[in-house]
């Protein structure tokens, strides 16, 4: 009997040591801390109900998609609500599940999880037009007035970032994934750097990648070693139960900020900083779990608090 107990303890110890091996191994070279500069919405007011997407313009106005009340909202740099648009529906300026936002040249672009296409608003949130796109879109970036990039989400367009003109016409496609893999393996968030390179994080794969503007892979890195996301099946469709990375953001130096998921020490809170060459240089932790991170043109970081009722803005301080 005592032998069994010894074996039991050895197994537990082995398990714990094995689990320790899952943590990122590279030693961060710099230390980063956050200093809060702004907080919008609280449990005591109805400013925000469940915000999802955020984007900031050159004048530091903050645009937020609030999925719980089917709106997009504009706040000035001090956090004062200055415009609100939207209601439940599928017509112009209406939403079912507003998600990611992008902005460029006094235009705000909004994607809705349950309505195909991209809705375009002016900077006062007046509806302008809807770009007709058949497939769903996971993420969107607009880096110049005439180029809209979107991570496509359709069965026959997996692993592709599409580039559209202002009328929604397809200009080109940038392939990144492996269409032979399960569909969820090609779910990504992406950012476009000042050098027009593409930076991707895979939601269900331990992969962070950089592609040059032509679509050639420059580097691919992983932060966790030996992880294996648990695979399940419903009918003949495979899915994964562990999200590896939740979001990606770039600062003005093209440093890559990656929000970790289920394999992080603090899931939804640990942010890994990677230099433009693909080396992991720092890790810091958000005060609360977030579904996304965003960094504006002045290198302020935005993330979630109070499970989506609050938007926080932080100054990134390197020590």
């Amino acid at each position, binding site marked *: 009997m005592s032998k069994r107990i010894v074996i039991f303890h050895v197994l*537990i110890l082995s398990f714990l040591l094995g689990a320790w091996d899952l943590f990122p191994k590279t030693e961060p070279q710099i230390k980063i801390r956050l200093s809060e500069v702004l907080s919008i919405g609280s449990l005591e007011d109805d400013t925000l109900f469940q915000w999802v997407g955020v984007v900031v313009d050159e004048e530091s106005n903050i645009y937020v998609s609030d999925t719980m009340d089917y709106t997009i909202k504009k706040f000035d740099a001090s956090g004062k609500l200055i415009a609100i648009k939207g209601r439940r529906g599928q017509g112009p300026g209406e939403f079912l599940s507003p*998600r990611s936002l992008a902005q460029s040249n006094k235009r705000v672009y909004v994607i809705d999880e349950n309505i195909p296409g991209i809705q375009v608003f002016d900077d006062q949130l007046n509806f302008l037009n809807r770009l007709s796109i058949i497939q*769903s879109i996971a993420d969107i970036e607009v880096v110049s007035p005439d180029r809209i990039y979107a991570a496509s*989400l359709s069965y026959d367009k997996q692993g592709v970032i599409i580039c559209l003109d202002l009328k929604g016409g397809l200009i080109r496609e940038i392939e990144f994934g492996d269409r032979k893999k399960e569909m969820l393996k090609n779910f990504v968030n992406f950012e476009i750097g000042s050098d027009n390179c593409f930076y991707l994080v895979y*939601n269900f794969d331990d992969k962070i990648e950089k592609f040059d503007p032509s679509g050639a892979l420059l580097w691919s890195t992983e932060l966790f070693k030996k992880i294996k996301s648990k695979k399940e099946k419903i009918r003949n469709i495979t*899915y994964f139960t562990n*999200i590896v990375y939740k979001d990606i953001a770039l600062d003005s130096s093209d440093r890559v900020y990656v929000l970790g*998921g289920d394999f992080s020490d*603090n899931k939804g809170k640990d942010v890994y900083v990677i230099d433009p060459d693909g080396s992991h240089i720092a890790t810091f932790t958000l005060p609360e779990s977030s579904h996304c991170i965003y960094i504006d043109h002045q290198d302020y970081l935005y993330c979630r608090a109070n499970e989506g009722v609050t938007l926080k803005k932080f100054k990134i301080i390197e020590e």
Partner: protein
Amino acid sequence: MNLTRSKSSTKAVSVGMLFLLMLTFIPVIAEAITCEEALWNCLNDPVNGILMGGAVYCFNGYVFCKKYIEKDTAR
């Protein structure tokens, strides 16, 4: 008598450790079931089940659930 007491205390420690391990994993399991149940319901809806476009729609919601609804629990 002392040997029995020693074995009992060892057993108690083992059971305690197992209980603590289970407690560690309960929140993770509970969270996973919530998103996975929603995915299961979505994929088994006749409307979504027929076309692969329906699977994309379901996965889209699943990814949002996994990103947004999870709690501040350790692994």
